[in-house]
């Protein structure tokens, strides 16, 4: 039963991820992404990480997804004709090439998995009687042995925030004339 659920969840997340890339409508892409996140949340749940599953739904499925929708709806999506032309760029040969690469990668992975002597079934054995207490365990790992990585992540987030703000903010009262092209680019 658990195995079956896993395959369903995995199929949903992979197919939805594919849908994000191929769908022509950005809003549709965002909705597909939501499906993919939900599938991953289910996989977390099956592995015994209830807290991660809940966070995945709350943060990614909720907050981040709403932001994506806002961005897609508020921003100018560009000329529909140009968009259609962009999407026509992928020729048959390119599609075939991409599929060949992806297919061979999948084949290699399948062979590797088949020749692997990992404990089976994949799920269940991780799951102690009465379920894990994932929140306590996670907190202990995060603020115990991995506290340095946790603090390092804060530097990473700060650097990312500063970087994004620098790139996104428009330049006001430009001092040098050479920056006039930047107005066009950022507009």
């Amino acid at each position, binding site marked *: 039963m658990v195995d079956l659920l896993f395959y369903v969840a995995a199929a949903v997340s992979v197919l939805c991820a594919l849908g994000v890339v191929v769908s022509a409508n950005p809003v549709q892409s965002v909705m597909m992404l939501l499906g993919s996140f939900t599938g991953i949340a289910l996989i977390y749940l099956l592995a015994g990480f209830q807290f991660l599953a809940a966070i995945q739904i709350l943060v990614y499925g909720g907050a981040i997804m709403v932001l994506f929708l806002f961005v897609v709806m508020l921003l100018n999506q560009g000329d529909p004709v140009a968009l259609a032309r962009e999407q026509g760029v992928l020729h048959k040969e390119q599609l075939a090439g991409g599929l060949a690469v992806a297919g061979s990668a999948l084949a*290699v*992975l399948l*062979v*590797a*998995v*088949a*020749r*692997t*002597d*990992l404990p089976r079934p994949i799920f269940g054995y991780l799951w102690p009687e009465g379920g894990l207490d994932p929140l306590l365990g996670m907190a*202990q790992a995060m603020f*115990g*042995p*991995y*506290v*340095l*990585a946790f603090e*390092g*992540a804060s*530097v*990473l987030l*700060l*650097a*990312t925030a*500063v*970087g*994004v*703000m*620098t*790139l996104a903010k428009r*330049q006001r009262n430009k*001092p*040098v004339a*050479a*920056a*006039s*092209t*930047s*107005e066009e*680019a*950022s507009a």
Partner: protein
Amino acid sequence: MFALQDLHLQGLSLLSPELTLVTTALVVLMMDLIWKERDSWRLGAIGLVGLGAAALQLVSAHGTQGTAFGLVSIDNFGGFFKLFTSAATGVCIVFVMLDRRERRHRIGEYYFLLLSAAIGIFFMVGTYNLLLLVLGLELASLASYSLAGFHKGEKRSAEAAMKYVVFGGLSAGVMVFGISLLYAVTGTLDMRVMSGALAIDPVGEGVARSLAVALEQSPGMVALAMILILGGFSFKISSAPFHFWAPDVYEGSPTPVTTFLAVASKAGGFGALMRFFGVLFVAPDVGEMVAAYRNEIGMVLALVAAATMTLGNLAALRQTSLKRMLAYSSVAHAGYVLVGVAAMNQAGMEASLFYLAAYYFMNLGAFGFLLYFSGVTGRETLESLRGMGPKAPMITVPMVIFLVSLTGIPPMVGFTGKLQLLYAAMGPAEGLQLGWLAVCLGLNSVISLYYYMRVVRVLFLEDSDEPRPEPQVPMAVFLCLMAFLTVWFGLFFTPLLDLARSGMDLLT
């Protein structure tokens, strides 16, 4: 079980260079808000002081062995790369301070992001734990993505940032996938536990299996994991087949950022790669099974090295832009350094460290030259350099020295480095045949002679009636210093050799 009292200040004092850099970065960011100067040299000075303090701490900690928080390992090998990174980041900050065009941009954020990337590299090269390695790699990458697009108005810069993000995201995904597979078969993220050097995982729990056991039980999975992880490293060091981003990103980024990517970021990638493969395969007490596997990994690395240097040099032949040519040359040099790693023994790793040290002097010099000339003439083509040689000898003569050294002609430090790489390829680990790689290295040096010397020819043997370029004293002093060191360490290379050798405490 991990207890709170383990979190003693001892671990923190071992991390003092990292903490210094974090503090410096935050001070720069705050002072930028307080001073509100667009053209501030004071911020750059703060950054330099912080980097200098970190470098001093690193030098005084030379020889110290220890582990902080079970994650960061303090050793000479990491110290070498941290010192390299601080020195290279310092030069990049000086470049920003010297370049009028760079200072138009948000200078506080500029320095902050450079320092953040340096912190990321510090974590990347100083850890046995794959989690922290990925975190450091991402910190360095994310800061570099924004730096690559720092010239917001310019199309090329925006394109560079975009390409860098897409390639970087893809290769980080590939690498993390590989690490997750490795975790699945070994049950640990610590390289020393995988290699069997440590019996108990300092941070993890549960049963861990060594790589030798994993190789026996699931060879396919280990092979796949190794290839995927190598892919992630390949992106960082811009080696084939993950080098396609490098020329475009290097060309589009602001020149000080290009310098950072080509020198500090690349060395950081090598530090992580050498620690990973060194600990897992080259360390003396690896089992018989792993030793046999080592030669296969060595062969893969040798193929990557040969492909990288050949592709880089052949593409560099056709370039008309000096910046793009230096970008391809930097790709080729990644291939040279990989030769030492592919030898899969201590001598090879030493040669790689030595060559990286040599690379520091000659490449920073070459990029300084590029920065000066693109600042004076506003162009980056070879054409714009025509006849400039006699007009600015304090700038162009050092450049000739750098180019000669990059080719690998005696008596420059580049020659000494290449000689050691050749020795490494002639005497690799037992059972590995890399003679062909030595031949390939020699042939590639000959190819590279052509395009490096073309710059010299344009500079000195061609004439133009362009006016004498406006002199810039600090840059001339910097270039002369770098040129002096390039020659000095080519003749008296023992200090560099000792430094490289002391970094080999990785393998004990």
